[in-house]
């Protein structure tokens, strides 16, 4: 079958390369497993060094699961994760500690992401203690990092508790914590969705700056195509546990290929008042249950172009124009 033919070998210079990744959560009933929630199914992703990849999709599409699997919070059921040329799918013990240093995590809800009983210094010191940074270096590193995320003057913040800071400041602390171990890859899971619109751009600009200065690679998980447009180099669109389309940001936005991507782009609100009466076409229905996904293409119940083959067989991943990957029978 076609879908198995997509096994493009990983480029060893890429920071992250994921092949055939599956995360199935077992459903336990007393002592037996009655089924699986297929949160991720056959996901393939490539991210070059120093680039920003946006993972876009609606809630329940598996984008957060993908982020957490990259962070090794979830264990993959199948597939491989190659980080910087090394297979980290099954690493344990000392090696995973190295990997923990390499990857930083920025969460969605900054207040929940910070332990309320620690002050900022303690919060930032924790990763340093765990990774055995000598005591004398810790405070200088904390200061450096706080300056880097523009929590200045440092003295005003270092002894404060999270609840004393505003949402934007809290998110900066979260970013500082992700950066303090000097990682090469950051997984940012909706880092601005809980913030005020005015603060969003500040935080995203900060990310951009940091990315430029440090040469970071970022996996930016969002449901919001407009920030992805502003922020990312490359977009992967997810639907019901699959990556349905992946290409350079401008290509995806200007020439979306998958019907789902097309509907997503149409759904972006337009601030132009002249368009206020314009009817926006949104795909009918809801995302499918991952416990019992529909056969064939998972989008077919909502797809305006659904064909017979879509209902029978899962679509292959097709490379269009060499750089645009799409998982759809329309191009198959």
């Amino acid at each position, binding site marked *: 079958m076609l879908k198995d033919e997509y096994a493009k070998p990983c480029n060893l210079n890429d920071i992250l390369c994921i092949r055939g990744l599956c995360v199935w959560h077992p459903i336990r009933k007393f002592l037996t497993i009655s089924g699986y929630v297929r949160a991720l199914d056959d996901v393939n992703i490539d991210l070059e060094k120093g680039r920003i990849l946006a993972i876009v999709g609606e809630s329940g599409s598996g984008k957060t699961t993908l982020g*957490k699997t990259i*962070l090794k*919070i979830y264990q993959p059921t199948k597939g491989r994760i190659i980080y910087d040329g090394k297979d980290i799918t099954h690493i344990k013990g000392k090696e*995973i*500690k190295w990997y*923990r*240093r390499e*990857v*930083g*995590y920025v*969460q*969605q*809800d900054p207040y*929940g*992401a*910070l*332990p*309320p*009983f620690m002050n900022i210094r303690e919060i930032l010191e*924790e*990763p340093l203690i*765990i*990774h055995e940074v000598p005591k004398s270096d810790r405070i200088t590193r904390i200061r450096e990092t706080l300056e880097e995320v523009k929590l200045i003057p440092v003295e005003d913040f270092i002894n404060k508790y999270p609840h004393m800071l505003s949402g934007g400041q809290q998110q900066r602390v*979260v970013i500082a*914590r992700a950066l303090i*171990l000097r990682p090469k890859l950051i*997984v940012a899971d909706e880092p601005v969705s809980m913030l005020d619109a005015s603060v969003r751009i500040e935080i995203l600009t900060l990310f951009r700056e940091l990315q430029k200065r440090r040469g970071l690679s970022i996996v930016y998980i969002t449901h919001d195509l407009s920030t992805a447009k502003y922020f990312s180099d490359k977009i992967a669109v997810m639907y019901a546990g699959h990556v349905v389309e992946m290409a350079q940001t401008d290509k995806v936005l200007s020439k979306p290929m998958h019907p789902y991507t097309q509907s997503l782009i149409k759904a972006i609100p337009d601030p132009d008042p002249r368009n206020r009466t314009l009817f926006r076409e949104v795909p009918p229905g809801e995302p499918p249950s991952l416990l019992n996904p529909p056969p064939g293409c998972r989008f077919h119940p909502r797809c305006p172009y659904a064909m017979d083959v879509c209902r029978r067989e899962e679509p292959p991943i097709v490379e269009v124009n060499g750089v645009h990957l799409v998982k759809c029978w329309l191009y198959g």
Partner: protein
Amino acid sequence: MRQLKVLLKELLMYKSALVGITIIASLIILSLYAVITAPYGEVTRKWSSIDPWEDFPKNAMPSWVNIFIGRKLPETIVLDSRKVEPSTNKTIIPITGGKYILRILFTFGYTYDDFPSEVILRIFSSTTKQFTAQIVWVKPGGIEYIVSRKLLRGYEAYYITSDEEFLKKFNANLINKLGSRPNYDISINEALFAEEDQSILNQNTVTVLKGEYRAIVDVLIGEEDLNKVQIDAKLVVYGKVHGIAGTDHRRRDLALALLWGTPIALAFGLVASITITFAQMFIAAMSAWYGKSFDFIVQRITEIFMVLPFLPMLLMISYFYKITIWVLLLIVILLSIFGSGVKNYRAMFLQIKEIPYIEAAIAYGTSSFRIVFRYMIPKILPTIIPSIVLSVPDFVFLEAALALFGVGDPQAVTWGRVLEDAAREAALYKGYYYWILQPSLLLLLTALGFAMLGLALDKIFNPRLREM
């Protein structure tokens, strides 16, 4: 440290906390006083022996009852010829035939409004040689009775209070003097201390003759024994009130038991409460964090322990084995660490486990152990502290209840033991209210102190409970 200061400041805004802290602080001061003044081993030994309590009255009420009843109940008067006191006088009077009389004279004033509870004369002799002794009782106004003549050999405790012979003589004397005898069974205490006019004839009017009393012990000795034999006497007129807490049926001073009961109650309550809460919290955190089969096993063990009958088990163990109070504490802790608290805390931890900062901690490589101790437990600590404080009295009461069941340390001197003695001696039935009320009051006070502090702490740590 600064946080502690802030907490204290906030705490003092609540009056209940102030009262609670005052009560607990005074209990702690009392405990410190007990620990410093009397070593525990000495106290337990003293409590379970008889000799040290010889000169204490039986079932005497605390002295402060005088304030409430408006009469002056007698205190205990102890006169000992071995001590140099102005009230005792030892003289040797030569008589004919090379014989001497060794005279011990006790003088004391008696100004109380009630009769004493007992009068005992103890005579000590350094040899086993037999002597003749005569005991004379002189009331104020020179009324003189030869109470007894007896042969003396070694140590002799003469219970004047139960000398029926003297009573016969006394009654005969009264008939001579007043023309009739009392229309009730006059007791020897009354005979020794009553005013001898018409009032003595009726039980309702009999009054104490206040003034200076004398008791004379004359011992007839030969010249050869004069310098060899040492004869001494001790007269104890037992009162009806004693000290600040009274005495029990074995003449023991309850103040000692109540004083030493304080540190034991506090230690028992605090140690049990703190250890059990922290152990339960730790088990619950581990169970919630590791989940899966570990969680399964822990939860099943907890369920088994929850249905085990706690009190019958404790009774059984302490009937089979001779246990001290500290072993009892250990058993209480062991039976409780898998208690219902594990279920409650686990429910809290399962929620905490899902908070994003735990995931962040995993992402930067925190070990499971560190997550449990540094991230999960501190989060619920604020809600735990009030419950620790609130559950202290539970264990203080438990110890008292166990003592009431006759379980527990026969050596330990606790409030529960005092209550047990009182219950066994039917104190309430006999009207010894002080015996029950004092330890009960201390128990209640402890509970009140911790409850008031705990409730105030609860309001501070769980602001939703704060009233507007």
